[in-house]
């Protein structure tokens, strides 16, 4: 029981980091970034490459993974999203064009992953991350699990505080609310977009390296299943709602872990799909989300 909870919390941390980025991009910039799973994998893959090439400490590989994902997504924004946004005649058209472009970008990034891993789950080097199990009150947890939980909490609290209390945070909220008007107020929406897209991808990269370290291997398709989980969390929490996304991620991980443990993985899938469909039908804006219908 306690052991399940500990495992679920670590898993929920990965979901939270991954979803946080997806939700920010969507809520602030109307970018549904389906390449988030590929960026997640890119972080883990970079850490793998770095760990193989140089014997950097784990923290070095972690930073490299985060930076690689952030830079990659920054390039997406500069070379692709910006051009599509400029060309589109309305917000709706821009949204769909960018969404389609993220699918193609994801294909390219995953293809790189397939080349580098040969399409197999590839193990990190032995000494990449020494896993030390701790025994406390009858449950076992590892350093990686602690690190995941700490990162998830820090990032969530950090983003909430940043968006709420800093000037840049206010600018982000203004852009999310009404991009053209925010631009009229002297906010450099282009620069802000670059920042949000890169930061979101950095979160995906962070989640990727941590998840990779937790599993002990990197796999080109490792991001696909997380995309579905992140959808569930976003539908539960509402787009752009950071705090609720964290709650939703942990709740989802708990539901999954316990239903799988006491029923079966099939029941788990059905439960999760049922939740997402129920919310989409009845309350598509999520628990705390903004209105869906924009006019």
């Amino acid at each position, binding site marked *: 029981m306690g052991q399940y909870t500990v495992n679920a919390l670590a898993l929920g941390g990965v979901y939270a980091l991954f979803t946080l980025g997806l939700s920010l991009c969507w809520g602030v910039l109307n970018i549904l970034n389906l390449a988030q799973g590929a960026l997640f994998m890119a972080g883990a893959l970079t850490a793998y490459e770095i760990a193989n090439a140089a014997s950097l400490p784990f923290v070095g590989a972690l930073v490299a993974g985060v930076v690689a994902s952030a830079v990659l997504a920054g390039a997406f924004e500069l070379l692709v999203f910006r051009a599509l946004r400029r060309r589109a005649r309305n917000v*709706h058209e821009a949204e769909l064009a960018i969404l389609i472009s993220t699918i193609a970008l994801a294909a*390219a990034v*995953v293809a790189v992953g397939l080349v580098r891993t040969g399409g197999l789950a590839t193990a990190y080097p032995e000494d990449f991350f020494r896993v030390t199990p701790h025994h406390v009150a009858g449950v076992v947890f590892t350093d990686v699990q602690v690190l995941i939980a700490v990162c998830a909490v820090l990032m969530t609290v950090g983003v909430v505080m940043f968006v709420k209390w800093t000037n840049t945070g206010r600018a982000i909220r203004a852009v999310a609310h009404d991009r053209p008007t925010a631009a009229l107020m002297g906010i450099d929406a282009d620069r802000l977009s670059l920042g949000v897209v890169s930061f979101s991808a950095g979160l995906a990269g962070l989640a990727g390296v941590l998840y990779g370290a937790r599993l002990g291997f990197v796999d080109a398709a490792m991001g696909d299943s997380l*995309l579905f989980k992140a*959808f569930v969390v976003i539908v539960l929490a509402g787009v752009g709602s950071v705090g609720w996304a964290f709650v939703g991620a942990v709740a989802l991980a708990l539901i999954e872990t316990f239903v799988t443990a006491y029923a079966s993985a099939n029941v788990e899938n059905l439960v999760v799909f049922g939740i997402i469909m129920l919310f989409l039908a009845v309350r598509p804006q999520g628990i705390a989300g903004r209105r869906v219908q924009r006019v």
Partner: protein
Amino acid sequence: MNWYDSHATLIQLAMIMALLGYSIQLAARSGALSLAGVGFFGIGGFGAGQLLKNDWPPAVAVVTVVAGSAVIGAVLSLVFAQIRGLYFAMGTLAFTLFAQTLASSWPKFTGGESGIFAIPLVMTTGGLALMVGVAAAFALVTEFGAYGRKLRLLEEDEILAASMGVRIRRERAIALVLSAICGAAAGAGQSLTFGYFSPGQVSFALTTNAVIVMVIGGTRSWFGPIVGAFVLAFLPTWLQATGDWRAVVQGLIAVAIIVLVPGGVAGTAVDLARWGAQRTWSRGQQPAKPLKPPTDPAAGAKPQARLS
């Protein structure tokens, strides 16, 4: 050996991809991005395979799975009645991802990891061509006339369309049902042509390929998915020089088309042809430029000139 015989498998695969392309394109014409096609591809593939193994007549089996998928699509459209735009795309993708997990965790129906084997090989190239032909004919008929104008208006401006009396929810439900029908037909085609169908085939990668078919073909012409599917099928042969990196190059080509050729290859060709026809018809007269609002709301990202 003639050209057709040596490329038969590739041509069959291209026609299946064309059907998947239609599953996105027929919906995209009304401004809704439906990624549910691959989910229905799974339903059609496993459904038709199981029915054939239980000695159903092939035609009845295909019609049954397609009709069943249409019903599921209609039910799904009720669930999605309130959502639009990115939510709709995400909801339909969630359906596909769910179908994917279900396929690998329901071995009684799908045969587990290895899939179902020894399905009678009843589908011929002609049968596939017939299904693609029906989809293409439907796209052709609905591209012109009052219905075609309605679709274009819907894609252009939903609010305007609604105020002109277009029933948006109904159109979106139709889009999803069409998506379901084409996806299921593609799945049935796949399993009855090649005799096996496995959960690994219901993948995110297939959704990506279906999207790339639509990107290459564009949404503006009825034969777009056919062009897109054949280009995608033969692309590996043309890109042999890139070796291992072929899939990477393929993805980057798709991105380049999205950025540089927004109407897709087929759509842009049609546009150019129409534009040329217009030029020769009214010589010297410039084609009318669309009115541009003073500030482009979607792009309004440029910092406005500050008084200094």
